[in-house]
């Protein structure tokens, strides 16, 4: 089955340290990958996407993600975490060419500790 996994339910990091939120995928064909963030009692906000081209993608709020085809991963990273980065992060994959078939991972809760 085509799917997206986020192996960590919770990630804790100290403010100023680098953060990584992990995502792996299992799809047939080309993966079209997305990261979203959700702040408390809000909808999801788009951060970045990988469609093709450069494996390192930069997004909003200073985050970036690296597409690794051999490891089927698309980890989200930020060099220096802020307390305001604390949120729920979702990885997603678009399974078709019509934008109608997104599969979301279960989410990873990031807590940045002051």
């Amino acid at each position, binding site marked *: 089955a085509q799917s997206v996994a986020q192996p960590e339910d919770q990630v804790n990091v100290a403010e100023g340290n680098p953060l990584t939120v992990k995502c792996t995928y299992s799809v047939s064909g080309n993966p079209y990958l997305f990261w*979203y963030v959700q702040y408390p009692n809000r*909808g999801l906000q788009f951060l970045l*996407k990988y469609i093709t081209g450069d494996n390192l993608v930069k997004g909003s709020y200073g985050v970036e993600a690296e597409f690794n085809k051999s490891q089927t991963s698309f980890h989200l990273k930020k060099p220096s975490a802020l307390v305001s980065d604390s949120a729920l992060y979702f990885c997603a994959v678009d399974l078709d060419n019509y*934008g109608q078939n997104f599969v*979301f991972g279960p989410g990873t809760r990031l807590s940045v500790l002051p």
Partner: protein
Amino acid sequence: DVKVTQSSRYLVKRTGEKVFLECVQDMDHENMFWYRQDPGLGLRLIYFSYDVKMKEKGDIPEGYSVSREKKERFSLILESASTNQTSMYLCASSSPASGSFHNEQFFGPGTRLTVL
């Protein structure tokens, strides 16, 4: 900026009531979606629509129906609300992919529905 609005942020209903959740987008998007979000389960697709009056079932359509009479508006209907439909409901919209350009979905703020 794309804006997706949902009619209520919080809603409390009783078992057996008919519930309407409304979603409006202002970017002329063809695709609109209804998801429910539950802790540990991520987002699960209930229904989506790719055009006016068109709808497709998602992964968990049982107990729900939808209506799309106008391009900008997509309604989710709980015919007879049950306690297991207590959840966060998220509406989203997008335009279809064009060639290699795959578009993100834009989300509304969500409606937290409690069924007593």
